[in-house]
């Protein structure tokens, strides 16, 4: 893992391209603005449609022109689609408000990126709205290609090319799996539209459906960045322009999650009876692993955007935990309420993660666009230079660390409740798995808090550690506005989650067959969340984040009043205490230092290695300077992917080296082939 990545390769290499502006002329700038505004309008419209459907109006169905003779194409927005459409649109709105000035700031190919952006967002929306396999696949691949262009078009350095390649390969492998699943269904259904596919799936036997589901999980997991299919994610997301990173993390991963929901709960689910336990087990397990693994690796990143990318892995894990639990509990007598709770938790976390991860990426982008680096060690002291960014980033950090009173805590609370109550209900192995998941989730929360204490502290606090950070200034208003939008969402979702439950009613009702989210979770008013389904008729926990927040606020105000009571004793500034030396930025605790204890505690996972180079000074005891460089590895990458790649290449090399260039060999091959075929097939 590269610890330091220049976000903007000096001197753009793409300027020869006609689509690339020469130094962003007015025309180009207008085009960029226009493109983003168009996207913004589209996103708003999409959000409107989604809200209408979620509000309870009939599902929207649009028949598309028949492009191919073998498939009817259509869009169908039911509750589930609408919810994910909403998620996509929310992030898209913020991104397209934020985008233009960001691209103006330091993009290499604004036009290309704007075009790709204008393809990317609609494709994501289309995937969510697709009513048939073909539309789904086309939009799915369009999404991949557009995001790939966005990843590689930012600069021309080799690392981004590699990142893009890795991303594309993983995505394509996933698509291949999806292709197999979809086509198997279409073959049985003799049609491409989802209802027909669902009927066909219903006619299949259980084992086949399980195989198909696992394939689908593979396909969507590769896109969602589920461990161990996540390796592309931390490479690709940082490489894109920041508002696109926000979209990729906040929206694109959710689209993959949508796929899992669509397949797991709707398409492949049998119309009668519960889902096979193996599905829930797998999803729950993968979710737990992703959550812990993602956050552990995030802790050791010093590239701000890379850190956020790893956190996406973590949050996808949390979402999957909820989903897996819902799969395990759903359709079993007595646990419908719990299943709904779990599902609602997972869906809500989807929305929450879109909000705060989008916010964080936008914040990171605003920092990067001012300091021209993504390396946290070169930041510092930005809180006083770009206050808006700083406070909004802090808000995001609190939210993602699942700390009250913001939205991250709400969904995680629901997940905890579902895990505990569900674990008690299921008992046995499944219950134990739920228990393990609960403990791992708790650990994840702690790790996330530590990680963002580091991220925020090292980036925005202390003294600036580089000239760029020294002279950084606040980002332009549109970027701030984009962040404010998502920040607002974080606060709202945190303080009055009951209203968010209304949004979840329709999807949960569709998936769980009847029981709607707010009937379970917000049964006692929008300000109160209650975990339905306590044992033996006992009422389960209820909680009011609103109340807690207001109490917190009251006390805070009171204390602030007492604290700043006018008193004669003076207030003065003094340099920070550094044992009497004059403090410089070299005294600050760096990200590496901050994460060191954890590096040692979890050494088994990190396999850290360090190198210390010392330049001897005049005296052997006083070296002129010490250079410390350490790095940790992504275990899956080193253990699995590297070896796989090496094996394939080695085999291919061997074959190629052995192949003959002599014509006799060629002729012999022809002859041998003929003889063999004659022997095998020649006789009746």
């Amino acid at each position, binding site marked *: 893992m590269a610890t330091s990545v220049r976000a903007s390769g000096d001197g753009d290499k793409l300027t020869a391209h006609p689509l690339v502006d020469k130094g962003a002329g007015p025309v180009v700038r207008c085009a960029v603005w226009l493109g983003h505004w168009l996207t913004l309008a589209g996103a708003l419209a999409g959000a409107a449609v989604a809200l209408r459907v979620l509000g309870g109006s009939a599902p929207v169905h649009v028949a598309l022109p028949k492009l191919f003779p073998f498939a009817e194409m259509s869009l169908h927005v039911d509750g589930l689609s609408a919810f994910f459409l909403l998620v996509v649109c929310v992030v898209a709105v913020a991104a397209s408000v934020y985008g233009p000035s960001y691209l103006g700031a330091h993009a290499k190919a604004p036009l290309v990126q704007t075009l790709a952006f204008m393809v990317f967002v609609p494709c994501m929306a289309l995937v969510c709205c697709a009513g048939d396999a073909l539309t789904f696949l086309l939009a799915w691949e369009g999404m991949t290609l557009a995001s790939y262009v966005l990843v590689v078009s930012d600069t021309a350095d080799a690392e981004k090319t590699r990142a893009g390649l890795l991303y594309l390969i993983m995505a394509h492998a996933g698509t291949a799996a999806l292709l197999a699943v979809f086509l198997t269904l279409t073959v049985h259904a003799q049609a491409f539209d989802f209802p027909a596919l669902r009927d066909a799936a219903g006619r299949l036997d259980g084992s086949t459906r399980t195989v198909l589901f696992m394939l689908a999980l593979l396909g969507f997991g590769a896109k969602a960045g589920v461990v161990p299919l996540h390796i592309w994610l931390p490479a690709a997301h940082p490489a894109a322009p920041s508002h696109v990173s926000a979209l990729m993390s906040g929206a694109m991963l959710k689209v993959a999650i949508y796929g899992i929901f669509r397949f797991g709960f709707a398409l492949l689910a049998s119309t009668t009876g519960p889902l096979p336990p193996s599905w829930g087990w797998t999803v729950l397990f993968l979710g737990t692993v992703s959550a812990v693994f993602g956050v552990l690796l995030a802790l050791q990143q010093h590239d701000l955007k890379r850190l956020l990318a790893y956190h996406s892995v973590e949050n996808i894990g949390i979402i999957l935990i909820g989903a897996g639990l819902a799969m395990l509990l759903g359709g079993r007598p007595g646990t419908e309420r719990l299943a709904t709770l779990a599902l609602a938790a997972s869906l809500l976390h989807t929305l929450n993660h879109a909000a705060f991860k989008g916010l964080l990426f936008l914040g990171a982008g605003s920092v990067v666009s001012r300091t021209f680096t993504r390396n946290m060690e070169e930041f510092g002291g930005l809180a006083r230079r770009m206050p808006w960014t700083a406070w909004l980033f802090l808000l995001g950090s609190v939210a993602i660390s699942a700390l009250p009173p913001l939205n991250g805590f709400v969904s995680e609370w629901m997940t905890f409740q579902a895990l505990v109550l569900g674990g008690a209900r299921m008992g046995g192995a499944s219950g134990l798995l739920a228990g393990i998941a609960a403990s791992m989730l708790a650990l994840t929360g702690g790790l996330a808090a530590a990680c963002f204490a580091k991220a925020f502290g090292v980036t925005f606090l202390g003294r600036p550690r580089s000239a760029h950070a020294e002279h950084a200034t606040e980002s332009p208003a549109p970027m701030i506005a984009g962040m404010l939008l998502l920040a607002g969402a974080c606060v709202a979702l945190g303080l009055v989650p009951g209203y968010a439950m209304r949004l979840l009613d329709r999807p949960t009702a569709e998936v769980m067959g009847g029981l709607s989210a707010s009937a379970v979770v917000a049964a006692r008013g929008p300000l109160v969340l209650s975990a339905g389904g306590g044992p033996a008729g006992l009422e389960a926990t209820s909680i009011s984040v609103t109340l807690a927040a207001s109490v917190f606020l009251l006390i805070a105000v009171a204390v602030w009043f007492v604290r700043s009571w006018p008193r004669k004793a003076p207030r003065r500034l003094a340099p920070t205490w550094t044992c009497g030396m004059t403090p410089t930025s070299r005294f600050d605790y760096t990200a590496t230092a901050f994460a060191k204890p954890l590096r040692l505690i979890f050494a088994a996972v990190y396999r850290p290695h360090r190198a210390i180079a010392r330049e001897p000074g005049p005296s052997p005891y006083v070296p002129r300077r010490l250079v410390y460089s350490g790095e940790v590895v992504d275990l899956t990458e080193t253990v699995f992917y590297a070896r796989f790649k090496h094996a394939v290449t080695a085999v291919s090399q061997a074959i*190629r*080296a052995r*192949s*003959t*260039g*002599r*014509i*006799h060999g060629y*002729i*012999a091959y*022809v*002859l041998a082939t*003929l*003889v063999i075929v*004659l*022997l095998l097939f*020649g*006789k*009746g």
Partner: protein
Amino acid sequence: MSIELATRLINDLGALLLVTMMLILASGQLFRAIFAVAAQAVFLGIAGVILGIVTGNRDLWIIAGITIVVKAVLLPWLLIRVVKRVQIQREIEPAIPISITLILGAAIVVLAFHLSATLGPVRQAITGNALPVGVALTLLGVLVMASRKKALTQMVGLFASENGIFFTAMAISQGMPFIIEIGVILDVVLGALVMGIMILRVRSDVDTDIADLESLKG
């Protein structure tokens, strides 16, 4: 002439063709191989004449004539000219030992008869043993090409295997349509010319045998 006699004669000619092919396989000398191919062409012509008499099909006479002129005279002459031009030593350098080549050849013959043994009634459509012999000749010709180093010997093998095809084609009742036969022969001649030119070209440009080039691989 009666059908039985014709059939017996065709079978005998087939045997002769096989023998000559074996000779080519075994021959250590280029000229000997070339002459063997010419001889094959002559046998082919005779076979054509016989079939012509039996079936009373005028085309076969003409085809037989053309075959003899082209394959027994023109092509060998061409080959020999090329040999003279490039002045390679006359010994054939086998890519695989001749003994092994012969064993493979025997195996191929067995295979051919074995295969066509399974073909039931249709055997009557093709006179006598023409089919297995044709298969054997075709494959053996290719075997020659695979087992010899020099480009010219590969051409020899090519012609030999084409003789096999012609033999089968004639043995099939009525032979192929006239025009087709002509076209096929034309193609063969053209191909031979092009190959010859290539050989000479390489020999003159880079002084080596074109079949020895093996820089393109992988």
